[in-house]
């Protein structure tokens, strides 16, 4: 490898490492229930979307995930609603999350795309364990397709997040965590 090529590879590695650290840090804020700090990582114009996953015939995979433009999703919202959810948890009166559940986000398979201006597409998988009261367990597994945007204060902000939860019928009574 030439020096220039090595420099470029190292720069790329450092960039990917920076994004990984950002995503791990984000997961830590959620698991530590620092929701006010987490919401700071959300861009003002975020589209936070978790579609419903359909069982569809071969050849109709384009219909598998519910369409944000016309259909019903589990989450399909912007920062204002997300911030409202954070306020709700912080009331201490949100019974579905009071007392707090024990939640752990394992973030894996991080794949960083190419920087386009100040935005970069990033894919990652999540395994989210939630244990509640004595023995209630909810497991959420899926993948995320993010667009992260450079930010002088927080490193990045999450400008777009598509969350594909690998469930058809939601096997949990509620989703009170974020992904």
């Amino acid at each position, binding site marked *: 490898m030439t020096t220039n090529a090595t420099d470029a590879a190292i720069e790329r590695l450092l960039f990917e490492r920076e994004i990984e650290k950002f995503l791990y840090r984000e997961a830590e804020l959620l698991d530590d229930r620092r929701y006010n700090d987490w919401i700071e990582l959300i861009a003002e114009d975020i589209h936070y979307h*978790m579609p*419903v996953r*359909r*069982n*569809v*015939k071969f050849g*109709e995979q384009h219909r598998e995930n*519910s369409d944000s*433009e*016309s*259909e*019903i*999703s*589990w*989450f*399909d*919202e912007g920062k*204002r*609603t997300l911030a*409202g*959810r954070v*306020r*709700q948890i*912080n*009331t201490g*009166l*949100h*019974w*579905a*999350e009071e007392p707090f559940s024990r939640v752990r986000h394992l973030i894996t398979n991080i794949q960083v795309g190419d920087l386009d201006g100040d935005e970069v597409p990033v894919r990652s998988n999540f395994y989210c364990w939630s244990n509640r*009261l004595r023995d209630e367990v909810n497991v959420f597994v899926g993948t995320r397709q993010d667009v992260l945007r450079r930010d002088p204060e927080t490193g990045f902000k999450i400008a777009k997040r598509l969350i594909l939860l690998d469930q*058809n*019928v*939601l*096997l*949990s*009574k*509620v*989703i*009170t965590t974020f992904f």
Partner: protein
Amino acid sequence: MVNIIKSRGDRSLRDLVDLEKGTVAREIYVNEEIYQQELEQIYTRAWLFIGHESQVPNPGDFVMSRMGEEEVLLVRDRKNKLHVFLNTCRHRGMKVCRYDDGNTLLFTCPFHGWSYDTDGALVGVPHHKAAFHEELIKADWGLHEVPQMANYFGSIWATWDPKAPSFLDYMGVFAPTIQWCFQSTDGEDNGVELFNPATKWRIPTNWKFPGFSFDGDSAHAAMTHRSVNVAAIGPQGDMEGGSRAGMKAPFPKTSYEMMIPELGHGGHNYMFEQPGVSDYADTWQTEPKEVDEYYRETRAKKQEKYKDVYLHAGDGGTALIWPNVNIQPQRILIWHPHGVGMTESWRQYPVDKNAPKVVKDAQRRYMMRYGGPTGVTESDDMENWNYAFPASLGTVAQRLPYNFQMGLGHDFKDDRLPGMTFNYRIAEENQRARLRRWLEFMEAGSWDDLYPVNPKKNTDK
């Protein structure tokens, strides 16, 4: 009287449900045998909500639905006729369809290849000549279809019981409420379509906790939903205090629990003190102005249409139709039994079919952030319905009855709505009505014991 609980000697269900005292044994919510009897006595007899014709607009369209624990298919056949079929192959029982919705020419079983036309007829049997020797009579082995189906202003209902009364008889004076719920906001019949897809989720609780308490439990709101108001995330967005009060335009009307105890239906409806409907109320100020303009306009049309008509329950009224579906103008809530301790909740959202996209989008987004397992309001309901179940399972806990006494003995009639029974808007009269019908269904030998209804003392007042 049929003794359901065989293992308990001569005790009958009537000992468990005391409607005079308003006490109910926890057993009926947690006992496995009673649950199995419910599937037989209630879910194979009652008219059940299946879906809406807008879900299957074209010939060959189908959508998965459910009756009790069992999957059914709502299908529009190639001649445009609607059918409801049990999703099971007549040969060895495999699901003939494993898609949530779609369009097809045939339902072909993936096990041995029996295939059925969209009208349910068995049309293809591999080796029919060589192996069945053409002795299999295909006409006898079509998909199992409900004996009775009704299309009521676009909403589709069905029952497994050929002897069940007609849908209109089953609905009684609640039929107009259902009609109104499927009107567009300008008061036109058949004016809505349903957003797709239905959302479906599991709540670890008996189906009667949500099924009987939803729309029969105004008392829960202040406590269960306290966080919604404190966080100011109610229907009007960030309005201070999150109060809904601003949504209600003044109009001389009184909210009641209204029910037909003889049929088990009940909801929250208005008694209007004058004809017509109330003025438009600002509800959409956080959305683009076209949304506000659209609903203002449709409201004006509805006001014009009904200016001389008393529209009791026609302006935001709700209906829990026995046994497990709640119909509201913008929400349909279904609580399917899924084992004694599990409920599979299905939710669908109607919207004016002729509304512009901006309006449909606003309506859709509001419903998504409000309702269901990811809704800011309803998530707290799930927690309460969930944990009431295990806390009722204990040996000692089961010695303690539930209290259904709120408003007991304070029901009354009003000549303006004959056939309807009333109670104060915060009462448990709707829940007692469901429990009464529950007891009747569980004891009945057949529909002969259930209809025509036998008016009882609390309807004679």
